[in-house]
């Protein structure tokens, strides 16, 4: 009995060696120690969140889209002429589409004058309870411990269930090869994507790892975008949320978006 079990374990061990995800590092580990760590200057948080202060974003009306350009440039996001093929990480849209459930029949004053035709910055909300993650059949999109809803482009099968599940339209499929459509200067530090995978904003996880703020945040000279740890009571985002009334997109869906808007 014992003997049989031991043999089974050995065989199981062998097959793990054959199929396991990390056999190499295991094998190396026997020869010498290998360590996998995150870099010491990486930014860390319990829960990342973003605050968009619309009052500081009024330049958008005059065509400011620094944040979008910064993101596209950083991540080699393609720009298609045909809206059908569009890929968007962070983009500007009207309040009507950003907050379709906000209705104001008799909108006047601030709402009408300022908000109605102001392009709103929208991006992935990095929901706390993300439906896209729930539906993904291969865990290609998943929620990190720090709240970032990540995309694993190596694993995505392009089924687009996440796109159907996302109530914010934050996800784009690469309907075709994106490379010829990258109109910003190519960032050689960051990959492009291949056709057939879904992509979206990742809160610049690669920049956070290096201790940098997300590209859009860094690019906004008016500080309309603020990024930080909402679990940290002393953080700038908490400060903003404390001082200003804020709304989130479609809170009634229970996804708990982590992008807050100060109107």
């Amino acid at each position: 009995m014992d003997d049989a079990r031991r043999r089974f374990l050995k065989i199981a061990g062998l097959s793990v060696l054959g199929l396991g995800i990390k056999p190499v590092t295991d094998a190396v580990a026997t020869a010498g120690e290998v360590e996998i760590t995150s870099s010491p200057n990486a930014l860390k948080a319990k829960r990342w969140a973003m605050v968009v202060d619309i009052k500081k974003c009024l330049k958008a009306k005059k065509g400011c889209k620094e944040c979008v350009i910064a993101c596209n440039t950083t991540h080699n996001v393609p720009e298609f002429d045909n809206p059908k093929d569009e890929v968007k990480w962070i983009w500007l849209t009207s309040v009507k589409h950003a907050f379709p459930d906000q209705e104001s029949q008799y909108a006047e004053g601030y709402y009408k004058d300022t908000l109605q035709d102001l392009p709103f910055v929208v991006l992935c909300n990095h929901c706390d309870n993300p439906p896209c993650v729930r539906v993904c059949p291969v865990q290609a999109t998943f929620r990190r411990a720090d709240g970032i809803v990540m995309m694993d482009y190596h694993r995505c099968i392009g089924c687009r269930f996440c796109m159907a599940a996302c109530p914010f339209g934050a996800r784009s499929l690469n309907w075709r090869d994106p490379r010829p459509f990258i109109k910003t200067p190519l960032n050689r530090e960051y990959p492009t994507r291949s056709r057939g995978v879904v992509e979206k904003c990742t809160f610049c996880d690669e920049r956070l790892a290096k201790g940098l703020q997300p590209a859009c945040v860094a690019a906004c000279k008016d500080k309309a975008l603020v990024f930080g740890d909402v679990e940290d009571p002393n953080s700038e985002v908490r400060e903003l949320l404390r001082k200003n009334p804020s709304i989130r997109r479609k809170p009634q869906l229970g996804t708990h978006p982590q992008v807050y808007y100060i109107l």
Partner: protein
Amino acid sequence: MYNSGKIIIGIIIFLVLATFPFWFNRGVAQAPPKLEVGTQEKQCVESTPFMKANHMKLLVDWRDYVVRDGKREYTSTTGKKFDMSLQNTCMKCHTQKTKFCDRCHDYVEVAPTCWDCHIAPVEPGQAQQAKALRSSN
């Protein structure tokens, strides 16, 4: 011998097929390609024999650590630290993909999908190509 016509044709077909690699090579042993490492660095992330055989597995492991675990730093058996990045670590040393990666991959007919997304460094004489990559069609 009977039915010699058909049988000799058959034997010839067999011989042609069975000796295909002999006559296809015409007696020339194409030497394995010289890989141009592209750097003065003495040692890669791990030992050369290990990298030769296992670089693809290492890269896959790196990929998973980075994307899935958010861990980006690799301390190798030599104790040196590396940012786990194909574009930003590997290709910084091996700056000439065509003379390093491709030569060997072509020699043994391996077509990794890495380059569908990851961007190879611009190589001398390749500026034109790099431009083409970005220009819209």
